[in-house]
């Protein structure tokens, strides 16, 4: 117990809530004052301390965040989607975001689905693919229902090779396809021979080379460790993966060399990874998913364990209600566009890549990646402020993922739906922008905030359990 007398003689550090003039006069005396930009609580959003069932929400969140924090996602191997992803079958296509029927799918998702059907040689052309996709003969299912995540359209078809990550602390496994690069690519809804040819090469050359290399590494590659290093090298591991991709190449390089006989193939594999700054994204995402899954099912927790978009809807799920989606219309991205494209061409926000923000990096770690703010003409100061603001809505902080410019403070971890509603501050998202029409591909990149409505719905549901 501290006593009042213990305060006497100590240096005061003052927290000021309310009148700014009170802070100013204390500052004038050379005393450290932290001024809070105080806002009254929002009307109709009482602080939820306990669930109706009597669970202490803070305690539940402590548990949920602790589970996320303790996660150790490791790349342990590779496989073919139909063989390794639970529930996957020959007539199933996985997609990003919350569940959606063909009729409501956005252009890029439709494009990616049709492209996948052509790639799989189920359909000969786009017309046939469209007909089949609309016929009901193909089962569409969210990646998130299968321990998988997919960037942008997030389409996974049965024969695609996938990374397999295992959370060594909890034993759960997650899956993600291999990143194709930027421009006209399937995940942005791109269609055409170049798209299919690249995918074929990835299955025929890239996948076996990587798979052999990984097979020679009994401990796999710890992806969280690479993320931690990349955060110190200017990545936030959602929209900037340049450093992390390089780190991955260093980690797997010797094994690639040892396990591949054909130097030309090896060179092309290295070239492909090296020329795709986003290669690591498809490892960063399943790593996030692997860390978050153990928090699913923590009763009474208000921590968000999924944020995902299908290009039509934005959906979130809570640790305490892991099977329930709360959705709202997907938002408009503010960004920079490739030449000839403008925001008129942009599809609404799309992809499972917001799993990175959910796991406490990506937009949450904006301060680590000042270069990203150039997407919106921002400054490094803006990046820092963004991360500092995200601490307002997260329950905890990472221990091992830290930000040098914030004096190695842990990144904001565990979006608390209560705090989002109480403060009105919405999660920051960094993302690529897909063309709204099927077949075109990527047109730019930018940032936005998650839509409030799905958080409101989730908050309401939480207040009723």
């Amino acid at each position, binding site marked *: 117990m501290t006593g009042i*007398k213990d305060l006497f003689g100590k240096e005061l550090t*003052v927290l000021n809530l309310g009148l700014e003039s009170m802070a100013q006069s204390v500052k004038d005396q050379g005393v450290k004052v932290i001024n809070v930009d105080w806002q009254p609580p929002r009307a109709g959003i009482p602080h939820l301390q306990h669930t109706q069932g009597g669970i202490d929400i803070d305690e539940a969140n402590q548990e949920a965040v602790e589970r996320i924090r303790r996660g150790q996602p490791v790349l342990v191997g590779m496989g073919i989607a139909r063989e390794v992803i639970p529930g996957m079958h020959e007539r199933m296509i996985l997609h990003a975001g919350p569940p959606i029927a063909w009729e409501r799918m956005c252009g890029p998702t439709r494009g990616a689905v049709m492209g996948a059907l052509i790639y799989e040689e189920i359909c000969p052309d786009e017309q046939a693919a469209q007909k089949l996709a609309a016929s009901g003969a193909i089962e569409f299912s969210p990646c998130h229902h299968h321990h998988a995540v997919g960037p942008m359209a997030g389409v996974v078809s049965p024969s695609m090779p996938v990374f397999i990550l295992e959370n060594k602390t909890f034993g759960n496994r997650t899956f993600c396809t291999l990143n194709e690069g930027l421009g006209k690519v399937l995940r942005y809804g791109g269609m055409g021979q170049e798209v299919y040819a690249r995918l074929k090469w990835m299955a025929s050359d890239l996948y076996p080379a990587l798979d052999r290399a990984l097979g020679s590494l009994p401990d796999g590659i710890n992806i969280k460790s690479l993320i931690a290093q990349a955060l110190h090298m200017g990545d936030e591991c959602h929209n900037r993966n340049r450093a992390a991709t390089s780190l991955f190449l260093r980690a797997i390089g010797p094994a690639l060399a040892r396990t591949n006989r054909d130097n030309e193939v090896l060179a092309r594999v290295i070239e492909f990874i090296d020329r795709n700054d986003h290669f690591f994204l498809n490892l960063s995402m399943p790593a996030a998913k692997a860390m978050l899954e153990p928090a699913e099912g923590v009763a009474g927790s208000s921590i968000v364990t999924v944020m995902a978009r299908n290009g039509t809807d934005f959906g979130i799920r809570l640790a305490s209600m892991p099977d329930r989606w709360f959705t709202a219309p997907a938002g408009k991205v503010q960004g920079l566009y490739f030449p000839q494209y403008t925001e008129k061409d942009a599809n609404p926000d799309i992809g499972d890549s917001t799993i990175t923000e959910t796991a406490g990096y990506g937009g949450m770690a904006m301060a680590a990646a000042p270069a990203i703010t150039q997407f919106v003409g921002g400054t490094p100061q803006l990046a820092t402020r963004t991360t500092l603001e995200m*601490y307002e809505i997260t329950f905890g*902080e990472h221990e091992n993922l830290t930000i040098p410019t914030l004096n190695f403070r842990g990144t904001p971890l565990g979006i608390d739906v209560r705090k989002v509603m109480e403060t009105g501050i919405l999660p920051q998202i960094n993302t690529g922008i897909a063309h709204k029409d099927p077949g075109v591909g990527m047109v730019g990149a930018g940032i936005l905030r998650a839509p409030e409505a799905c958080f409101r719905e989730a908050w309401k549901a939480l207040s009723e359990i």
Partner: protein
Amino acid sequence: MKMVVRTLIKPAEYHDSVSLMLAARELTNFEGVHDAAVVMATQANLSILAEAGLLSEEAETSSPDDLLIAVKCESDALAIAALAKAEALLKKKTGGGEGSEYTPKTMRSALAANPGVNLAVISVAGRFAADEAWEALHHGLHVLLFSDNVSLEDEIALKTYARQHGLLLMGPGAGTAILNHVALGFANVLPEGPVGIISAAGTGLQEVSCLLARQGVGITQGIGTGGRDLRKEVGGIMMLESVKALQQDPATRVLVLVSKPPDPAVANSILSQVVQSKKPSMICFLGGDDADRTKIPHITYAHTLQECALYAARAVKPELGEVKEYLAKDATQLAHQAGELRKQLSPKQRYLRGLFSGGTLCYEAQVIWKDMRINPVYSNAPLPGGLTLADSTRSQGHTAIDLGEEEFTVGRPHPMIDNDLRIRRLLQEASDPQTALILLDVVLGYGAHPDPAGELSRAVSAARELAHKEGRELAVAASVTGTEADPQCLSRSTSVLTQAGVMVCESNAQAARLAGMIIADRG
């Protein structure tokens, strides 16, 4: 001339009252604007707007979270321009700029980023203040709760928790504290010294500490407990805890306790704590009757703030001489001064009008007038058994008005920050032919207006001119609660007032006594 009233409602936009006031003031200076209000749309503010003729139908539909800007102009075009101007003024205030530092939005995140915080100063609107105080206490912070309008139940619960956890919970309504020589809220720049002060009310603490400073005596700590601390329901929790802490504090050699007369049981429990230590202790239960209390060598009872400061100073510096002698000499001098003044007043000028910004100073003046058998005295904050003004906005007979009372401060800053209301009242009293003398308190220090003496001096000159035009003299007396080191500077403030013809006394008690002597022989 026909006036146009226009309103702009900004839903759920919050600004603190000082920013709003600044915006409103700048707006009234805007060309063609007759009157303007920039307020949160609380019920209280809406009724103020209604009275001012600034309430439009649209405004009536707003909710308390909304920001409401209302202007009264000579034409619609001017009104539209004025509203645009108001928006720009508020934006100017919030514009952080690209390079500016991040300001945390919640206490939680502020503390996560700054683990060294040990004191929270809370001045948010009363209905939110208790929740914030709870959060601060739960984080192990000492709290200065500046906000008013916190329920008695909340106060008791907060203080009980604070006591259990060894924390200070000053307030609610704690306007003044000096902790570790840092002035918090309304407080003065004081020398360091051996006196520890605990006061229920802010201006009591300011007056005593400044009077000590005038005698060259400094303080260790100045703790404000909030005005209700010594009520029966609260039981003096914070006064007791603070006494204990100062008794154990080696730097504090003399204790000073200031409050209105507490509940008898509370007084007893405080006294039984005070006797636990041999440190000289001055107890000022302002205006209370302490004649029957057991005499204890190291305890001195003071009747006024002035006496309290005189006794406390002598406990540190015995060479200052006897208090009674000092007061007697002072009385002779005052009587002479009063005699001179009296000659200038007409027989019709019969009444005292005290216009106070400090509640405790208003109270002390009434105590002194009561001692001088000046009655009846009317007040909006009368002594127990005193007479309440029928209408606080109109004086009757001898009047002592506390302009810091809530009835005057709803939707408006405190009179220590904003002199407007007092200036208006000053002119109102000056135009009353029955007014003999106007008594003012001028409070300096952090938190207070940057130049109260200057603004009040100009108003006094105007008031005296007004009286002259009607063929009479007007006496104005004042005291300045402040120190040389205050940003406004005691001697500078005093000389500005003196130049305007104000009789400036060394203490509020002295000024009240001088005032009393002037009308002593009038009806």
